C-alpha cells in the first residue's frame, strides 16, 4: 500500500509539473490520428474505386492499358507501405525532399511530415479494406444500378461505397486505434506527441514508472473513448430496425406541404403535369383507381 501511495503522490507531482505538456501531447496524438485516419480512408476509397473499374476484353487498348497501369501502381503502393515499418517510412519521407533537392526543399513543419507519413500509411491499409468491402457487396446491386442507367462512378458513390463503408467500419476503427498508438514512432522526426512528452518528462525527473502509468492510462482512455464513439456511429449507420407504415392520407398531406421550391423554377413541374395529363387519356382506366393521391394533389393546386 505504501508503494501505491507513493505512486499516487509521484503522479500528482509529475502532473503538476508536466500536466499541460501531457495534455498537449494527447491533443497532438488524437488530432493527428483522427485526421490521418480520415485522409487515409479517402486515399483508400480512391484506390478502391480505381481498382474496381470494370475492364472488359472488348474495351479499347488504351483504356485497358491505363487501367492495368493504375492497378499496378496501386499494388506497388500498397505493398511498399504495408510491408515496411512506419518509423522507417517517416525517416525515408522526411529526408527524401532535402536529399533530392540539395536542401532547398524540406518539410516546413514536422506536423506536415507526420501527417503525410501516417496518411499514406493508413491509405495503404484502407485500399485493401475498401477493395474487400466493395467486393463483398453482391454484384446484383451493381447490375440493378447499371440497369437504370447509372455509370460506374454513380453506382459506386450512391450504392456500393455507402454499404462497403459500413461494412469496413470495424477496420476503420482498428486503423484509428492503431494510429493513436503508432504515431508514437514519429519522435524519430521530432514530432511531439503524447509519448514524446514522456521522454521529456523522465529525462528531467527520472520518474519512469509514474510517467509510464500516466501514459498507459492516457492511451487507454483515448482508445476506449474512440471505440465507444465508433460503435455509436456504426449503430447510427445501421438505422432503426423498424419502419412506420405511411397512410395514404398522410402522403397526400405531405405532398401538399412541401416548402422547398423546385430548383428549375417550377418549369419541370409544369412539364410533368402536362405529360401526365397527356397520358391521362391513355391510362384512364387505371388512374381512376390507382392514382387517387396524385389526382387530389393536382386538383388542389
Amino acid at each position: 500500500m505504501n508503494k501505491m501511495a507513493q505512486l499516487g503522490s509521484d503522479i500528482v507531482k509529475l502532473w503538476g509539473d508536466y500536466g499541460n505538456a501531457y495534455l498537449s501531447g494527447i491533443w497532438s496524438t488524437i488530432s493527428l490520428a483522427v485526421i490521418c485516419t480520415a485522409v487515409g480512408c479517402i486515399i483508400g476509397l480512391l484506390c478502391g474505386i480505381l481498382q474496381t473499374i470494370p475492364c472488359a476484353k472488348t474495351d479499347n487498348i488504351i483504356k485497358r492499358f491505363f487501367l492495368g497501369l493504375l492497378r499496378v501502381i496501386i499494388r506497388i503502393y500498397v505493398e511498399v507501405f504495408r510491408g515496411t515499418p512506419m518509423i522507417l517510412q517517416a525517416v525515408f519521407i522526411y529526408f527524401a525532399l532535402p536529399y533530392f533537392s540539395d536542401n532547398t526543399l524540406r518539410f516546413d513543419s514536422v506536423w506536415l511530415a507526420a501527417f503525410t507519413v501516417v496518411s499514406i500509411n493508413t491509405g495503404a491499409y484502407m485500399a485493401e479494406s475498401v477493395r474487400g468491402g466493395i467486393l463483398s457487396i453482391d454484384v446484383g446491386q451493381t447490375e440493378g444500378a447499371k440497369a437504370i442507367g447509372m455509370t460506374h462512378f454513380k453506382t459506386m458513390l450512391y450504392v456500393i461505397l455507402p454499404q462497403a463503408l459500413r461494412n469496413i467500419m470495424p477496420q476503420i476503427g482498428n486503423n484509428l486505434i492503431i494510429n493513436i498508438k503508432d504515431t508514437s514512432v514519429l519522435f524519430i522526426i521530432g514530432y511531439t506527441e503524447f509519448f514524446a512528452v514522456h521522454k521529456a518528462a523522465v529525462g528531467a525527473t527520472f520518474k519512469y514508472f509514474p510517467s509510464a502509468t500516466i501514459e498507459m492510462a492516457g492511451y487507454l482512455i483515448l482508445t476506449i473513448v474512440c471505440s465507444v464513439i465508433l460503435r455509436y456511429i456504426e449503430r447510427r449507420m445501421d438505422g432503426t430496425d423498424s419502419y412506420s407504415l405511411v397512410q395514404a392520407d398522410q402522403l397526400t398531406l405531405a405532398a401538399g406541404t412541401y416548402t422547398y421550391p423546385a430548383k428549375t423554377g417550377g418549369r419541370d413541374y409544369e412539364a410533368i403535369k402536362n405529360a401526365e395529363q397527356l397520358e391521362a387519356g391513355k391510362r384512364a382506366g387505371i388512374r381512376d383507381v390507382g392514382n387517387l393521391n396524385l389526382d387530389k394533389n393536382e386538383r388542389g393546386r
Partner: protein
Amino acid sequence: MDETILQISHLSKLFGKNVVLRDIDFTVKKGDVTSIIGSSGSGKSTLLRCINLLEQPTSGHILYHGKDISSKGFNIPAYRAKVGMVFQSFNLFSNHTVLDNCMIGQRKVLKKDRITAEKTAKYYLEKVGMLPYINAKPRQISGGQKQRVAIARALAMEPEILLFDEPTSALDPQMVGEVLDVMKTLVKEGLTMIVVTHEMAFARDVSSRAVFMKDGIICEEGTPEQIFVNPSKQDTKEFLSRFFDR
C-alpha cells in the same frame, strides 16, 4: 402502334468457347408483350442481358430505333434508362429506403428535381401497392414486396420497354400472384415488355407473342396459341408437356 423499338439480328454470345446464343433474330414493336420460355441454361437470361448490355454481345447487331447499341459513341447509360430490367433476385439497393430506391435513378440519371422525382416514385409505388412502405429498407419487406418495389423502380424511369428475367422464380408460391397481378396491370396499360418466365399460364394468357428457346437458339416463336396450344416443333411439345402434364 407499329413502331419498331428493338431489332436484333444475328446476335451471338460466347462465354469462352461456350456458345450460349447463336444467331438470334428478334424484333420488338411498341406495345408487344413477348414471353420467352425454355429450360434452364437455354440462354434466356443471357439474351436479356445482351439487350441491356450487361453482357457484351460477341457478334450481331441490336438496333434501338435503328441505332446500333454497340456502335461508338452510343450513350449506354441513357439507353439503359430507357430499357428497364427487373431481375430474379430483385437487386434493390440495400442502403436506400423503398422510396429512395425509386427516386435515385430519376435524380442521378434523369436529373429530375426532388419534388418531381418523389411524385413520380410515389405514383408508381402506389401502382404496385407499395406506397405504405416507402420508409422501409429492402431487408424489412418480403420477397414479393421487394419485387414489386423493383418493378416500381424500373417504371419510375418511365422506360420504353421493360425486361423481366424470371421475376417470380425466387418467390414463395403465395407471393407469385401479387407480382403477376402487377405485371398484368402493366400489360393492360400497353407497356412494351419482354418476360422470361416459367409461369406458363401467365405467358399464355397475357403475352402477344411467345418465344421458345433451346440451346441458345430461338426454336419456335409465334402467337401464344401457336406456341402453347398448337406447337409445331417436337422440342416445344416436350418442353410444354413437362409443365402441363404434372
